[in-house]
């Protein structure tokens, strides 16, 4: 009895983790995407990146339909805006001073960022280049890591959940069949 209960608890735990992984991976959306695919559909990018990524538009990782259908957000005319907002936007524009981009940062800020950030500023935002002359091939890990099974565990959870569901459905069918067989014998 104890064995059965512990197996049941384990199965429930696997199912719960599987359901979490199922929603985390957007499993259903990604499985049926091929059935709603048309060559005119813009590429939605990988999960968490680009438009439609999980990080941008919530859990389901879908595009904002309004944006897709062309009803884009229209920028309001400056003169129609209240004074306070106009002031703020002018301040924002002032921040994009080209001189700042070229590395003419005041000394006070330089001290605040420290030597590492200073180096980055000089190099520019897209430093690129090779790491110790070795570089990085396509599809290789950025940090030189060889194994990264962070995502695999979610797939394992979904796989295990499907297995548990199949085991219990199979058991249920066997039980029904046995009961039917017994009823026939009694009759």
């Amino acid at each position: 009895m104890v064995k059965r209960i512990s197996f049941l608890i384990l199965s429930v735990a696997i199912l719960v983790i599987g359901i979490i992984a199922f929603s985390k991976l957007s499993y259903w959306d990604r499985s049926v995407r091929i059935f709603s695919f048309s060559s005119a559909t813009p590429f939605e990018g990988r999960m968490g990146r680009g438009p439609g990524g999980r990080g941008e538009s919530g859990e389901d990782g879908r595009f904002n339909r309004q944006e897709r259908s062309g009803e884009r957000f229209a920028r309001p005319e400056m003169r129609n805006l209240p004074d306070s907002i106009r002031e703020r936007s002018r301040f924002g524009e002032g921040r994009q001073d080209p001189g700042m981009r070229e590395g003419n940062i005041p000394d006070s800020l330089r001290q605040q960022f420290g030597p590492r950030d200073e180096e980055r500023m000089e190099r520019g935002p897209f430093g690129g280049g090779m790491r110790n002359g070795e570089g990085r091939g396509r599809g290789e890990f950025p940090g030189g890591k060889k194994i990264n099974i962070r995502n695999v565990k979610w797939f394992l959870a979904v796989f295990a959940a499907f297995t548990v569901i199949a085991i219990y459905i199979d058991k249920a069918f066997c039980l029904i069949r046995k009961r039917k067989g017994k009823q026939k014998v009694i009759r």
Partner: protein
Amino acid sequence: MNLFKFFLSLIITIAMLLLMDPRSFYSLAFHEWAGLIIGLFFILHKILNWGWIKKVTIGFFRKCTGRARFNYVLDVLLLAGITLMILSGIAIARTIDFSWLNLGGSRMFWRVLHTSSSFITLALFGIHLGLHWNWVLQRLKIKKVKNGKEN
């Protein structure tokens, strides 16, 4: 033979899980080569169970049990899934040059097909394992074989 089948199935399962994320294990080159090799393993798995396939194919509409029929349909779907997965993988391969195959179609289409087929196939794999769970337990010697019958 059964032990060999068991280890082959285990390798296929582990490899399939590792291949679900292209960057989980070494590089994309590993993903592409392992994807091709897993296809061969799958064919080997089918060859080892050829007796069952032949028996059910012949008696599919006559003497088969419902369970055997369901397993057969599931296996056909798995075969289709694996085929689509490998075919779309070949079409979008980056480290192995398959351009000579001239598969055509847009890269985006193959990519979406690769993702969808692999996700559906993994789910089918899970169901397949669930339906053969008794066989797994017998191999692990957790469950005894009843009357010489194997699941």
